[in-house]
């Protein structure tokens, strides 16, 4: 039929974008491996990878740097970027709000609070100096808002708007508490909390990847499976209801999944911003708002973006600039530029 062909053609174009991003990720990955204080060429990195996989290592020193230091960071950049952008896409679609991001429900403020408490306590209780304790605290606290919302919803019927607003309010409350802590803290503690907040990928090792990776894959898969009901949420609560989707239950479930997934990465990296908010918007400019294509597109774009930001960050020195800073600095003008160019076909009125 004539009409259907147009639709399929448009769909093919969308998957092309996704494929393109995926290919670029592969290329950028090798690029990421070659950047750093110890110069290793692009082709060499590729060779080192192959050698490592086949077990035929010729240069153990370079192998160690590439495989043990740089590769986990690069891989994690992809994971985090994908997680944040995917979470952002889900939140924006479901909450029908262009300003939503995965942190909207208070995940980031909770994580920051947990980490701050750990940092403050670490001066008196040596236990809290351990990295993993900090991570666990951040993770635990970041899920408090989600749990509060779930508890609320057991007692009485909570509308979707209230769910959202409770999350935002918790975010503000936690921010206030963190503010208090930071103000009354000593200079060193303040500096430490601040740098945790800024976020970094630099501490990633092969040991820290498995858990967040597993959680991300499971949650991400579930979210993508749910694309149809998330999509219907765009029609508004009444219409969604009449099309067979329970709006309150859907919001609760999906928000919990997004919070879990986001918490799993944030507790390792700190709060890397921008990708979760603007990533989905950029993906939407290329792929449209249909959830079936938006979710994978946002995920691959987010992964690509953060990977490139990471490359740039590492160019500027061993510890480099924080990746969140870089992503905002390049991403913001990029976003505005795209907004201007696509004014007519804009993602916005």
């Amino acid at each position, binding site marked *: 039929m004539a009409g259907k062909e147009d639709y399929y053609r448009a769909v093919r174009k969308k998957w092309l974008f996704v494929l393109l991003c995926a290919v670029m990720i592969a290329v950028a990955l090798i690029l990421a491996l070659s950047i750093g204080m110890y110069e290793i060429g692009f082709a060499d990195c590729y060779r080192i990878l192959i050698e490592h996989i086949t077990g035929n290592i010729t240069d153990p020193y370079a192998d160690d740097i590439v495989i043990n230091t740089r590769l986990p960071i690069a891989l994690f950049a992809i994971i985090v970027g994908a997680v944040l952008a995917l979470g952002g896409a889900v939140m924006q679609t479901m909450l029908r709000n262009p300003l939503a991001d995965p942190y909207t429900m208070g995940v980031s403020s909770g994580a920051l609070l947990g980490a701050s408490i750990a940092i403050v306590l670490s001066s008196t209780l040596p236990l809290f100096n351990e990295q993993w304790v900090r991570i666990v605290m951040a993770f635990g606290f970041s899920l408090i808002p989600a749990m509060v919302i779930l508890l609320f919803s057991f007692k009485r019927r909570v509308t979707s708007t209230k769910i959202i607003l409770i999350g935002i309010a918790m975010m503000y409350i936690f921010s206030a508490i963190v503010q208090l802590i930071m103000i009354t803290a000593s200079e060193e503690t303040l500096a430490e909390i601040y740098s945790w907040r800024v976020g970094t990928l630099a501490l990633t090792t092969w040991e820290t990847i498995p858990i967040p990776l597993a959680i991300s894959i499971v949650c991400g898969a579930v979210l993508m499976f749910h694309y149809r009901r998330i999509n219907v949420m765009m029609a508004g609560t009444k219409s969604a209801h009449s099309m067979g989707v329970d709006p309150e239950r859907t919001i609760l479930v999906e928000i919990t999944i997004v919070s879990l997934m986001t918490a799993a990465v944030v507790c390792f990296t700190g709060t890397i911003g921008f990708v979760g908010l603007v990533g989905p918007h950029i993906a939407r400019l290329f792929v449209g708002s249909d959830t079936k294509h938006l979710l994978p597109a946002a995920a691959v774009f987010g992964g690509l973006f953060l990977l490139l930001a990471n490359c740039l960050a590492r160019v500027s020195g061993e510890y480099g600039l924080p990746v969140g*800073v870089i992503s905002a600095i390049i991403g913001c003008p990029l976003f505005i530029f795209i907004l201007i160019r696509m004014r007519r076909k804009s993602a916005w009125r």
Partner: protein
Amino acid sequence: MADVEIRMGKEEYKSTLSRKITFLLICLGVLIVTTLISCSVGTGYEFTKTAQVIWDHLTGVTYPIRSPDWWADYYIFNNVMPGVIMALIAGAGLALAGTVMQSMMENPLADAYTTGISSGACLGAVVAIIMGFSYSTVISGAGIVINAFIGSMIPAIIVILMVRYVGNSPSTIILIGTALTFFFNSMVTLVMITASAESLQDAYIWQVGSVTNASWSDMPLMLVMTLASAVLVQLSAAKLNIMSLGEKSAKSLGLDVVQFRMLCIILTSVLIASIISFTGIIGFIGLVAPHMTRYLVGGDNKFVIPGSIIMGSTVLVVADLISRSLMSFGNIPLGVVMSFIGAPVFLYLIVRRKSQKDVF
């Protein structure tokens, strides 16, 4: 028969009007009393003594130098009052800006920082502080203020220029503002990361918002801006009412929406810049004061504007009072107190509100 009904209708309207005006006057009274109370807190002087001192000062009574009264006068006027008055003016200005933004953006959750001004100001101030400016001398204190002001104007100008190219709708403005906020926040982060722990702390304290370093020389600019803006906005109250009906309705009622929105952005930007350059980023007032006021006097901007101004001043004066009462526990700046007041109030407002349609 119909005439009587019309007359009764008018009577009702008039009495509602006078009720609202009375309410506003009561609020004003509360504000004055609170201010006076605040002046006496933490000084060791009781309320009546403080009121006496202020009255005497205003009526031109002088004391023999270094007499107990002289000390009282000196202390209250040079140490306590600047902070309180600054809180008063800042509360008024921020609430005013918030009211305008909410009407203009047709979004009850918009506040004046949405366009990125606060991040720009932060950047300016932080750069100044890290570069070695501090409050220790008047000149470098002014340097921080000037830098903050310049910094805040950059995102404002970008937004205004962008709006010409990309489109005028509130969603566009919010998106651009958010992107700019991210951008400038990360610049701030960049600067702070490279700073020493000491400067970091100073910079952070500035950001959080406080009035502890206030002095009388800071007042004129803030006061003039706030007063001028208040007058201008009050005169445009009707236009603001129309704006909140939505773009199409507003246009059909003869309002040049594009131009008006632009003017609003410019006005609020300059107003806010002139306040936060001195105080740092005090949050929540711009968001919460208009809502509280609307809850009490209804949605007509003719009343909401003066109401918000008074409400904003009162809340901030109270916050300052709390902040100074807690002095014995440590230096807890105004901005932090405001966060603790603002967050629960915000929560209360939204949970209680009967949401007619999806807020989002």
